């Protein structure tokens, strides 16, 4: 048992991201529970509570959490996400979310298991202390630890020193990790995925000479539709009663989901940088929207991915707060690192996060990186689960190591030292 250094103490690993919350047992290779972080709610007011399957109730607000939470249409249901720019902004729903994952999906008792929680590198000390408080006071866990996703992603790739490029749903970050520690001065991150999403949405809703603007209606609002020809105007009827009772937040969430679906199935990127001729030579891809409207997307689908790596000067000039693209994030990080480290980091690049599953992303990244660092070596797991849940996987590895168990913050220590112990222990 000592040979591979593992000693499982049935710890739990909870990894909260903008799109989903992952939870599972340390030592597993896949999280047991993956639930969306976005939740639906009704402001019921007073004491009246609506009991719906798969939902947790809270004072004066009934929550709809889990796979049937926001995605199920409910009359007057609002939708919200507690995560803003990768950080937990609204702690009031975090306990119900974790409780749903651990108790309803995994069916385990949190007070019996040590829990390892992840945090992004730019997390604030107040946030991590709040998380520790929730774990100890509400879930009564025997031990707790909060680990950095950058470090965990490096561990998941089997490296102690790495340059972690993490592209999630709302944030893109480049984190230098040295000997299992994040170099905070080298961290750079931006809201790049949100820009890409907005760009894709803009492409879809804007009519072009070839096609009309796309109506981003989710299938929940469509009563019936008829098969129509390519580029023909869609013929469908809307569930009028539902449209009237739909809240704006749900509508936005559903439309964003339609855009994401489109990005995931159609959008791509040119591997060697933008080139009009090359873009025109790529085969267009067909896509059918829930309304029944279907068309082919050619060059415009490739311009979506371009946003990750290049921003045209007019766009930069018109928008001073434009999030930095990936190459500039990498450059920023490497510039702030010691000259000696640059070589090591550029030869240990770890690509992780669901955003990097974007078609052609890694190929483009390789070509961009090799241009400036000829000896660069990129580790991008081919398994989509490993890529999307790299942070969780690293946590699973870390929390099942025998040598790690001395680092847990125990309940006793929490009671003795209070919040200060979190910053002291979780370096």
């Amino acid at each position: 048992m000592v040979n591979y250094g593992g000693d499982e103490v049935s710890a739990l690993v909870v990894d909260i991201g903008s799109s989903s919350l992952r939870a599972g047992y340390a030592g597993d290779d896949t999280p047991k529970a993956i639930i969306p972080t976005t939740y639906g709610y009704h402001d019921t007011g007073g004491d009246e509570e609506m009991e719906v399957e798969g939902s947790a109730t809270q004072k004066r607000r009934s929550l709809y959490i889990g796979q049937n939470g926001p995605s199920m249409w409910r009359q007057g249901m609002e939708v919200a996400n507690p995560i803003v720019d990768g950080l937990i902004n609204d702690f009031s729903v975090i306990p119900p979310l974790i409780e749903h994952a651990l108790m309803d999906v995994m069916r385990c008792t949190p007070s019996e298991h040590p829990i390892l929680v992840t945090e992004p590198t730019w997390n604030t000390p107040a946030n991590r202390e709040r998380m520790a408080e929730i774990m100890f006071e509400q879930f009564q866990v025997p031990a707790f630890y909060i680990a950095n996703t950058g470090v965990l992603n490096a561990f998941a790739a089997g490296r102690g020193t790495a340059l972690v490029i993490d592209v999630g749903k709302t944030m893109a970050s480049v984190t230098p990790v040295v000997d299992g520690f994040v170099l905070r001065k080298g961290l750079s991150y931006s809201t790049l995925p949100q820009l890409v999403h907005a760009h894709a949405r803009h492409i879809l809703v804007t009519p072009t000479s070839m096609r009309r603007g796309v109506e981003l209606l989710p299938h929940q609002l469509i009563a019936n539709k008829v098969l129509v020809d390519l580029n023909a105007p869609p013929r469908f009827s809307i569930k009028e009663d539902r449209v009237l009772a739909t809240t704006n937040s749900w509508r936005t969430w559903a439309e964003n989901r339609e855009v994401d679906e489109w990005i995931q199935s159609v959008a791509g990127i040119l591997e060697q940088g933008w080139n009009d001729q090359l873009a025109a030579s790529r085969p267009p891809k067909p896509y059918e929207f829930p309304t029944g409207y279907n068309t082919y997307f050619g060059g415009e689908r490739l311009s979506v991915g371009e946003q990750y790596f290049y921003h045209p000067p007019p766009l930069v000039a018109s928008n001073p707060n434009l999030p930095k693209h990936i190459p500039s994030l990498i450059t920023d990080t490497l510039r702030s690192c010691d000259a000696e480290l640059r070589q090591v980091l550029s030869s240990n690049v770890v690509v992780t996060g669901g955003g990097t599953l974007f078609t052609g992303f890694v190929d483009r990244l390789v070509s961009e990186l090799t241009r400036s660092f000829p000896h660069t070596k990129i580790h991008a797991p081919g398994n989509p689960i490993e890529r999307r849940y790299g942070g969780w996987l690293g946590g699973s590895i870390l929390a099942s190591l025998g040598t790690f168990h001395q680092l847990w913050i125990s309940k006793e220590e929490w009671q003795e030292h209070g919040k200060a112990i979190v910053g002291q222990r979780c370096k």
Partner: protein
Amino acid sequence: MAASAADVRSILSIPEPSAVPGSSQPRKQPSVPTRKPEGISRELYSLIGPSAPSLVALTKPRLKQKPNLGGGSKVKWHLWIDRECRAFKNSARQDALELRHWVKASAPEDAEYPFAKYNIPPNVFTYSQDEYTRFLEDKEWSKEETDYLFKVARDYDVRWFVVYDRYDYPGGVPRTVDDLKERYYSVCRKLVRNRPWAGDEASKAQMITSYLFDKERELTRKKYIVSLENRTPEQIAEEEALFIEVKRLEQNERRFRKERDELLRTIAGIESGLPDIVEDEGLMNLVIDTKKKKRGSTAMDMDSPSTPAIPASFPIVKRPQTAKNAAFDAANCIIRTDPPTTIPVTKAAHQPAHLRSYKLPVPKAAVAPKITAALAELGISHSRLVMPTRDNIMQLESLLEATTALVETKRVVDKVDYDIRVLKSRLGMRESQGAEGRPGGTEAMDVDEGHDGAEVVGEDGRAQSVLSTRSARSRKHTRRSMSISSVDTSGTATTRAGTKRQKRS
């Protein structure tokens, strides 16, 4: 093995009943006390009986051995059968946290946690206020900041990049990682030097050197790294081009030197002071070597003992050459070649199906231009065969072979001619020297003797010497009394030639 009725009877000492009349069952043979051999299934054994061919037993499929995971306990099919979930305390922790894990039930209750031993505290010096005021004062650093530095270094196990990243002394001046390292290592050095040392001086000096840190050198090194990184692609290309250029120049120089030596050796002979015999012998070896190689490729392989020939009984798959087949072949211009039976069956020896034009014979690269020139003189182009039929290729092959032999012979003749000329001139020089310089002595006698020999052999000797260079060893005895020229060029160690050479040099 099931007990038969006979066994039961014998156990209970009941006498064997005589053949039971009307019994449809054939009487069972008294069980033979032979064991079922390993590696043969019970069903098969019962069918074929003890006359099982021994081969069967040998061909038992050997599966990979099961890993021995469970410490040799009898129950191996389930690892967790004798395990229990047990709470344990980690001695590397300061508190009394008890976690639970699965251990073997046989493990001792109060065993030390196996991972606690990996908790190695970083070896960071501490110092007292007194020590600080006596040795460690520095106008750049306050005591508080030094304390802070040592605390951070201890927290992050002296990983300097991390220490530098987390170093944030309130109100302190900004410091680089090298500033931090310099201060830390200078403090360590001073502490080692000034504290009472238990060991000997050598170990103390070694300890101090392990804390040596030269900030200037470190900075220069980093400057080099940065400049190395900031090279433009053009600079890198230029650098590579220069490197290749240097290599070429070196190679040229080496060639020039070799040629100069050769020239000197030729012109000045022994007076050049260069070891000239080596060259000749090397040449000789080369000739022999190539001969060996040539033979090795064809004949050597066949009778070399290391390569096992196919046993005669090996079934060579051969299509029966029936009359019908022969007629068919002739009608379709098929020529069958028997697979070579003497060549060992290896992958390399196997010849897959190929187009004949792929197998056009090509002259060896070394003599190719000469052969081309020779053929061009005759107005033959060998590089393209208009119709590569089997016969044509055979002819081309023989043509090339003949040309190669011709060129080779010409080369050897030229070389030998040249050698003779050189040696003759040398001999002439020696003669004139010997005549005017030293009238007596061994040297003169040797020369005389050689001179005699040369005179005697005359024209015939030259022809012989040509032969002797080609097959030196076999001609050793006849050549012993040959002309000097043949002795020197061949360089074979005939006794007289050997002594002569030693005396000269």
